[in-house]
């Protein structure tokens, strides 16, 4: 069977929703962060796939992926800094315990 764009998109969509599922169900902030990484990766796959199959003449998808990876790195670093800080103040990184920002 010829592997086409649809297959790649299937993979990325599945990865995306696995990430979403993780994000919704996990209570540990680090694991939630990991789910977010999965979501970002699925986006990257999309970019690459569209670039490869639809706009072969350009490199835009590639660049977006590169930038996304860079941003993801920055995001992960900041997130982890926040998590560690939160851990210091709450002695926990359970998301259920960090609900001060309500009404």
């Amino acid at each position, binding site marked *: 069977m010829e592997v086409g764009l649809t297959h790649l998109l299937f993979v990325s*969509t599945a*990865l995306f929703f696995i990430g979403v599922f993780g994000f919704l169900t*996990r209570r540990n902030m680090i694991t939630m962060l990991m789910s977010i990484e999965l979501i970002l990766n699925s986006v990257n796959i999309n970019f690459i796939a569209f670039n*490869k199959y*639809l706009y*072969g003449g350009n490199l835009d998808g590639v660049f977006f992926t590169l930038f996304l990876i860079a941003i993801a790195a920055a995001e992960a670093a900041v997130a*982890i800094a926040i998590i560690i800080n939160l851990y210091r103040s709450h002695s926990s990184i359970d998301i259920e315990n960090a609900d001060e920002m309500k009404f």
Partner: protein
Amino acid sequence: MFFLIAAFTLITALMSVTEKKIFRAAIYLLFSMMGVAGIYFWLNYDFIAAVQIIVYVGGIVVLIIFSIFLTQQVGRAMEKPKRLRVSFSLLAVLFAFAFCFIIIWQNEFTNVEESSVELTANTIGEQLLSLTGHGYILPFEVVSMLLLAAMVGCIVIALKQVPVTVLKKEKQNSTLS
């Protein structure tokens, strides 16, 4: 080959979000990232794949593992998520997945142009730093700034000593509630 890589990626990703022990989840994530890199290789985007491995596998996941070490007793099972939420999320996610995929499935993609550019580090570098045509110098600079800001931000957040009074207050709050 693609199917193998894809299956590997998805299965490890799934394991990563369902695994009870956090460290193992991180390891599964690592594998999943490598799977994604494998897809890039399969697509002949070697450079991206390399970046993927370096940044994700070598950087982010390692960072995550460190933070796990800092905040968690490794190997202890995490608290179970609420059953209601799991089932609700699962339902929502499955529905949404089906929904999205049906849209994708029904869509006819038409190829606009054939791949003509040789994807080497050289071309990427040139286009990334060029000012003309499809040059990406401005986003490049912006991203550099962003990275710098993120670095500074990380340091500020992580190093800030939380004032004692705030701590006390929060403790009181937690005991009260």
